[in-house]
């Protein structure tokens, strides 16, 4: 693990050293996606458990809607957010367009269906006796749901990982509502698209590789946490 981190960080330092704006964009990509995924997880885990464990009329339709949401193209979400935040819309006066906050909201819309659907899948495939056992042991509803999440943690970790990697690598939302503004809303994905558009393929490859490295590092990190956490 150490050699991997060292080797990668050396490579990254070499690339980033050439241009501080890459570091800037990388940091922005990470914090925007992290924030969006944290929000998606705090909303999506309860919704996912609820859809998996509580029977009510219209549940299947909701499950299907969230699953359909996983397939939303990011350009479509970008378009929706642009409409929401543009000057002539009711939300226009908030002046969210071309701010990092707009990207966070758009990526939340991208991440939420993923977290909800995969959590729902993971929790509903648990042995139904898990809930019953917890109940006979005196668990209140909150504890019972925490038990679901804990039992389904592999699936849920996967849900969050998938959501993060989609957010950190997505281009449509960041470009359309972020606007790729230098030093404010430029992310690694928009920088990669821009450099390639300018014909600077080397720089585009550099930002693209850093993006790839972040996605892979997060995967390796979560993979190892998951393995160590398993008893």
């Amino acid at each position, binding site marked *: 693990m150490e050699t*991997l981190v060292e080797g990668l960080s050396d490579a990254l330092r070499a690339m980033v050293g050439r241009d501080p704006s890459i570091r800037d964009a990388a940091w922005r990509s990470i914090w925007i996606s992290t924030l969006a995924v944290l929000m998606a997880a705090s909303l999506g885990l309860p919704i996912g458990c609820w859809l998996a464990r509580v029977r009510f009329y219209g549940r299947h339709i909701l499950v299907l809607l969230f699953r359909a949401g996983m397939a939303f193209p990011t350009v479509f979400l970008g378009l929706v957010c642009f409409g929401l935040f543009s*000057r002539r819309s009711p939300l226009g006066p908030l002046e969210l367009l071309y701010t990092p906050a707009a990207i966070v909201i758009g990526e939340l819309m991208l991440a939420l269906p993923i977290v909800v659907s995969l959590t729902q899948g993971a929790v509903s495939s648990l042995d139904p006796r898990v809930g019953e056992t917890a109940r006979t042991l005196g668990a209140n509803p909150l504890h019972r749901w925490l038990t679901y999440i804990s039992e389904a943690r592999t699936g849920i970790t996967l849900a969050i990982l998938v959501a993060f990697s989609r957010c950190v690598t997505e281009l449509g939302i960041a470009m359309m509502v972020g606007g*790729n503004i230098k030093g404010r809303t430029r992310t690694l994905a928009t920088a990669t698209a821009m450099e390639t558009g*300018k*014909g600077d393929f080397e720089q585009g490859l550099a930002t693209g590789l850093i993006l*790839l490295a972040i996605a892979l590092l997060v995967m390796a990190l979560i*993979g190892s946490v998951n393995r160590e956490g398993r008893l």
Partner: protein
Amino acid sequence: MRIDAAQSMFLVLALACLLVSGCESASETAPVAAETQPSKVTRATPVSRVLRLAVTTSTRDTGLLDALLPVFEGRTDSRVDVIAAGTGKALKLGAAGGVDVVLVHARAAEDAFMAQGHGIRREDVMYNSFEILGPPADPAGIDALPPAEALRKIAALGSRFVSRGDDSGTHKRELSLWFASGSQPKWDGYVESGQGMGPTLIMADQMRAYVLADRGTYLAMRKRIELVPLAAQTDELKNPYGILVVNPEGKARINEPLAQQLADFFIAPDTQELIRNFQIDGESLFYPLHSTTAE
């Protein structure tokens, strides 16, 4: 844990190798494939009927090429594939042999292209103009001012300004206008979109900011934005277009004969007349240059 580290490292390395080798082999094998692909049928006809033309996105967006190229294609029984990119990328495509002929508007970069031997012929074609656009309220009060003075006022008041910031011909012109104004384009309200003309205009409109735009894109979009042209039209806002024939030497599949024909076509008197008569919503966009310059 050890196996995990080795596994993940392998994964990272494998992917990196794949990426790098993918890029290299793509650029290496493409010309080879192109050489081997044309069978005896095409070998027999010396001149391919397909021409690859790189233009700037703003040129494509005006629709001028849609009016001119079918005439050329009909006369020469050929097909012109248009690749729209920023000036920088368009010229790079030419230098790399990815296209046969380039139509751009960045005189200094064009001259450098010729000086480096990437091109064998350059012709003035036409010019259009840039506009300094701004919100109708005009907070910096630049209406009818000469461009350099207008920019100086915008900078002095710290008004919002959206720059392309993408190394395009328009961006280069903006920088030279800043240089002429003596002001530094560095304040809180000055942002760089790094995007094309259309998205940058939308952004400036949404932010109620000032922006430098080519007249063609502005005319094509003016119904959807509130921005209006403010600064006075002077020579500093003229935008000359040149056509460059790529040097075939050392490149695998440059269609020089057809590229030369296209250059001839663009500077021919009747084409120049077509350019003069080309309009968007009753507004002329381009002014022929070749007939007037005796270079």
